[in-house]
């Protein structure tokens, strides 16, 4: 990828690669040539700071520094681990523990920034793996006195090995770089020296270290159990994903993509690498507020936005939409990734997009992307809009019965993914739940050696469109009936005033499975009994939730999905007979 960025820098040195938006302040631009310089600088620092380590943690705001640190890790052969900014010390500790055990490093090197220090300092007591790690802080213009005090406290009270990264050696200025790529340009940094050699840079042959099978990145997913698990992604695969996504979205250098999703999340990470591959621009917005998204999209003439259901739901529920006749005329597409919306919200989403294309994508951290529904397919509406489309470039999927044989068209089974996007494995070396297995369908048409058994259930229609039913482990058996919580949630969402619904199966004390619905509504008049009554008109009796719990807002994981362990906890804390 670094070769590719150098190429952009040579062809269009002063084109902006990255914009970092600060609320109400002037956005900070990083050109391609500046990005190359920044990557080189971080490479040098990492060689010193993380010389003996295989993994580097990045607990950073989405910024040019964060992007440069990721690419520098690739450049010097380290696996980077982006930690989501929303994580709290217990999760950070668990991730560092996972890295430490897998790599054998007792002191994991981690880069952070001012806001990251605030999170670390919010921990009431020291956490052992946070305390064992080596922390280096990037001092940028967002660094404030409270951040400095947090750093001092962490050092004094929690004994953290923590310091400013700037104290590590190795800084290259932009003009040095211009001198290398364009020898005629002025190079004040090396004035008076022999210019034929250029400054002392790492040899470019380093790039040849690129090995496609080596892991380059580790994504932590919350998983359905709530225990974070690390997914290792190969160097070559990350590049292939970027190439595939560039083609799917039809990206060219004129595009400006809006980034609101974290780089610790596969959808956000792929969006970034698509930008780096294609040479278009990325606007990194550190706000989750619908009005900020609309304003930023207008200001930068954004052409594409990758989003998850929670993001679009916030926008729908605040009554906002893109205005493609004026301020959002440039907007070409949005994506609905990492989850689905109910039929009603899908229609509202189409209205909100104002005619911009909608891509629906389906995949997992372990598989990148299995399928995509492209805008003209989405626009036809009807039943097809509820599918997640057809196989994605370079990927294949199969629907498999529980005995391992292939299901017929329309028949439900487990979705098995092969081809592009397959993870190298889990960080802890386990192949949890038999997920990563030799490809049982290997043939001339499918040369993928490995397959991912996704644990998702689905079926394919006669035209090859995939319909996802739900998680295999989410399937409930209630009085002998097979039930997917998502089917029930879809019916709850049709009711007036309901904004969000999550349905779980709970084992009752007598061993029976009981359906519990968690509902967020926008009106005070709704009662749990009333909701259940309305559902009896829409669902067979065995699918009507036994309990409906009204929530002020849905607890979310760092990636924006409903936080099931938190919902269960909430349920446990409620007296049983009290719900109606």
């Amino acid at each position, binding site marked *: 990828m670094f070769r590719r960025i150098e190429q952009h820098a040579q062809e269009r040195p002063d084109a902006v690669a990255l914009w970092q938006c600060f609320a*109400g302040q002037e956005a900070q631009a990083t050109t391609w040539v500046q990005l190359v310089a920044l990557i080189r600088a971080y490479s040098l620092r990492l060689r010193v700071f993380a010389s003996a380590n295989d993994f580097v943690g990045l607990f950073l705001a989405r910024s040019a520094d964060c992007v440069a640190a990721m690419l520098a890790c690739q450049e010097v052969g380290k696996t980077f681990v982006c930690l989501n900014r929303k994580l709290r010390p217990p999760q950070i500790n668990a991730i560092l523990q996972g890295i430490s055990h897998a790599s054998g490093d007792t002191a994991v090197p981690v880069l952070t920034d001012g*806001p990251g220090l605030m999170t670390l300092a919010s921990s009431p007591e020291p956490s052992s793996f946070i305390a064992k790690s080596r922390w280096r802080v990037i001092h940028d213009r967002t660094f*404030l006195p409270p951040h400095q005090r947090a750093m001092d406290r962490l050092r004094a009270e929690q004994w953290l090995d923590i310091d400013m990264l700037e104290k590590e050696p190795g800084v290259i200025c932009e003009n040095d770089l211009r001198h290398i790529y364009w020898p005629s340009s002025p190079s004040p940094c090396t004035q008076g020296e022999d210019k034929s050699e250029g400054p002392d840079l790492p040899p470019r042959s380093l790039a040849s270290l690129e090995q496609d099978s080596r892991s380059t990145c580790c994504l932590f997913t919350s998983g359905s159990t709530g225990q974070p698990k690390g997914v290792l992604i190969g160097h070559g695969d990350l590049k292939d994903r970027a190439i595939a996504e560039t083609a799917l979205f039809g990206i060219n250098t004129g595009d400006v993509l809006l980034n609101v999703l974290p780089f610790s999340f596969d959808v956000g990470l792929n969006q970034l690498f698509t930008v780096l591959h294609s040479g278009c621009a990325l606007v990194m917005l550190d706000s989750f507020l619908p009005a*900020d998204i609309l304003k930023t999209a207008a200001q930068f003439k954004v052409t594409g936005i990758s989003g998850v259901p929670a993001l679009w739901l916030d926008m729908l529920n605040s*009554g906002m939409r893109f205005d493609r006749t004026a301020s959002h005329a440039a907007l070409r597409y949005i994506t609905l990734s990492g989850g689905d919306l109910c039929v009603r919200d899908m229609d509202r989403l189409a209205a909100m997009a104002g005619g911009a294309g909608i891509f629906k994508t389906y995949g997992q951290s372990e598989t990148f992307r299995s399928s995509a529904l492209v805008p003209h397919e989405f626009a036809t509406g009807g039943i097809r809009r509820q599918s997640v489309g057809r196989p994605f470039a370079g990927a294949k999927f199969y629907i498999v019965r529980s005995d391992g044989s292939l299901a017929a068209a329309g028949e439900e089974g487990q979705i098995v993914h092969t081809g592009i996007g397959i993870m190298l494995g889990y960080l802890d070396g386990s192949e949890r739940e038999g997920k990563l297995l030799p490809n049982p369908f290997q043939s001339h048409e499918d040369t993928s050696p490995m397959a991912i058994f996704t644990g998702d259930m689905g079926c394919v229609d006669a035209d090859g469109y995939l319909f996802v039913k739900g998680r295999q482990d989410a399937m409930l058996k209630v009085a002998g009936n097979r039930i997917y919580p998502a089917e029930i949630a879809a019916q709850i969402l049709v009711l007036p005033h309901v904004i969000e619904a999550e349905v779980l199966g709970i084992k009752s004390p007598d061993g029976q499975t009981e359906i519990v619905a968690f509902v967020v509504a926008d009106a005070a008049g709704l009662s749990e009994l009333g909701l259940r009554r309305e559902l009896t008109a829409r669902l067979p009796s065995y699918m009507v939730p036994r309990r409906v719990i009204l929530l002020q807002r849905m607890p979310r994981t760092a990636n924006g999905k409903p936080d099931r362990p938190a919902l269960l906890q909430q349920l446990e804390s409620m007296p049983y007979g009290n719900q109606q």
Partner: protein
Amino acid sequence: MEISSETLLLYFRDRLGADIEGMDDTTPLFSSSVLDSFSIVEVIAFIEAQAGIKMDVWDVTLENLDTIERIKRYVQSKQV
């Protein structure tokens, strides 16, 4: 009603547990993690109650909320 810097600072410290030492009207609140993003709903409710205004959903931006200076400017603009 106007809303003073001191009122806001004390609210941040006493109700939201923020470290307000050395903080001034231009210190970023949410983008710096001095306040966490979950606090934004509470901050909006506090501003609305103190200033006797209703914040339109279009106005809920970090541009209007990320510093004390901007909050005060926004409140003033609503009272003209």
